[in-house]
């Protein structure tokens, strides 16, 4: 389905300085039983966020009212594990439009791009700068410019560029998805399929 266009996002950010955050933490398997794509945000980081009796865990960042914003800043190797797109849905449904990390797992990165959440990979040094800026002022804003492919810490002016391929960039700027593209070349696909060895 087509998704929100992404251009320039300026927002405060939520810090999660933990490495290897896996998809079972982002959304535990027992919450994958829906047949529609809605309501996953309630269970984002469920077992880090809530006790077994469903009371909030006070020391978890999403339960700390001083942090908010549309950008999630995670540690290295964010999104490792399962292919469940539900993890990206949960991130989106909670209200995040961008995830920043120094390294992403492949499938999670693809899933984000396919639903309009921008994964921004920065250097380990820049990630540290972001964490320090948020520590200094939880309301500090990051500016993410997709047209320029840059991320800026507004308070300090520190800036770094990030990679995204031209095709996906155009898709995100326009809110197009891959199926729109594929349906347009369906005849080529049909021809290609004619003489497969298997």
């Amino acid at each position, binding site marked *: *389905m087509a998704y929100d266009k992404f251009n320039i996002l300026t927002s405060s950010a939520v810090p999660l*300085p*933990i*490495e*290897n955050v*896996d998809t*079972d*933490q982002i959304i*535990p*398997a*027992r919450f*994958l*039983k*829906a*047949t*529609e*794509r809605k309501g996953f945000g309630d269970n984002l980081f469920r*077992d880090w966020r809530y006790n*077994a009796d469903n009371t909030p865990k006070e020391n978890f960042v999403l339960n700390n009212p001083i942090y908010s914003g549309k950008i999630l800043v995670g*540690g*290295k*190797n964010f999104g*490792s*594990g*399962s*292919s*469940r*797109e*539900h993890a*990206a849905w949960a991130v989106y449904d909670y209200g995040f439009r961008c995830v920043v990390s120094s*390294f*992403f*797992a*492949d*499938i999670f990165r*693809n*899933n984000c791009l*396919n*639903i309009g959440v921008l994964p921004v990979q920065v250097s380990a040094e820049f990630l540290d700068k972001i964490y320090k800026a948020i520590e200094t002022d939880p309301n500090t804003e990051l500016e993410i410019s997709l047209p320029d492919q840059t991320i800026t810490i507004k308070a300090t002016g520190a800036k770094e560029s990030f990679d995204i*391929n*031209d*095709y*996906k960039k155009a898709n995100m700027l326009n809110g197009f*998805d*891959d*199926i729109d*593209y*594929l*349906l347009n*070349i*369906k005849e*080529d*696909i049909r021809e*290609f*399929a004619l003489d*497969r*060895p*298997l």
Partner: protein
Amino acid sequence: MSTKKTLFDKVWDSHVVHHIENGPDVLFIDRHMVHEVTSPVAFLGIKDRGIRVMYPEKTFATADHNTPTINQHLPVADPLSANQLRALEENSNEYGISYWGLGHEKNGIVHVVGPEYGITQPGATIVCGDSHTSTHGAFGAIAFGIGTSEVEMVLATQCIMQTKPKSMRITVNGSLSKAVTPKDVALYIISQLTTSGATGYFVEYAGEVFRNMSMEGRMTVCNLSIEMGARGGMIAPDEKTFEYVKGREFTPEGAAWDKAMTYWESLVTDEGAEYDKEVVFDAADIEPMITYGTNPGMGIGISHGIPVAESLEGGVATYKKSLQYMDFHEGDSMIGKRIDFVFLGSCTNGRIEDFRAFTSLIKGRQKADHVTAWLVPGSHKVEAAIKEEGLLDILTDAGFELREPGCSACLAMNDDKVPAGKYAVSTSNRNFEGRQGPGSRTLLASPLVAAAAAVTGKVTDPRELMEFETA
């Protein structure tokens, strides 16, 4: 640029319908497998667009993730699970897709039944909304997990859009020592590379160890490719592969077999072809493995102690958080740690060879009283073989019960959940926090290590329970 191609290049390049400059390739998919959890939203998507499944004969549906492993003849009690299973059945019927639901004789874990029925073939591109789709790489296929948006793409157009990954060859030379299984080889490699060491790469496994490995062993290794971050891993097909594939329900016959064989026999890496990265290991360095932390890279030889944080490359805080969750300490020995649960099964180790290995070690012994053991075959075919080969009698005599097929406690979507704080020695693939139930603690290991734990009630080196044969 060199014209020498790797196995991976050959299969990938022959499936590219379009290449987009500074963008992904449009990759044609030969086989698509779907299960109940990651497909419903994809089916809704094509419904909303008002389009049909382009090649329904290339998609195969089975129910596995969210199914009970006892009393499968009864209606599924959990209404959400029942609803999801019903959606898969209805979608399969609506679009003319082959459907092996709960109770069907061919039902089982998607990555177990694919090879069993010859859906999995060398040189094919195979995808499924499940990261352990990498399993099928054992046949020399390019097989990898995809998200639900991509499931929708395959349903709609039989293609997905993917940037070609870099290539990595992992060679393991020499021969494996006693009690060292394919699972140990994989856990060893992951412990050396870390869980992100192969991210961005597609792996080819090469060398004597994989050549000598059975097809099922190769499946276990390729299955775990995702746990080092790789999208997939593959092994060049050989006589063993062709022998395995031949005569299965969906395997080509007659002239189609000859045509396929011509293609399959070309699937070797050309002499002199280059990889983006090469890693070489020595089989002699591998012993039975076990994990002690909360990702599959946190594994050690069973006789070793838990590493101290400062000796590792990763962040100290994350490492300590992990050990705190497990209630383990740096320097602890794993041997002798009391365990509560044993899980034999999953797409990693739920095949007949895994049950043979487990049974060989528990034969003539008794399950430890305090241990709860879940033995879950990967499919009905595996279940039938367990009975036919007499393994069930041995298991029963030793105090074990056999459950019905499914993913079960690997991801604990059904009722097979390890309680908070309890330890499970598990032959599955992930030891993430809460993976086997909220608060559960998982020790990943081979079927032999799981068997040793099941009869002693603690982490035990299986070699101590095995009679030493002379070489």
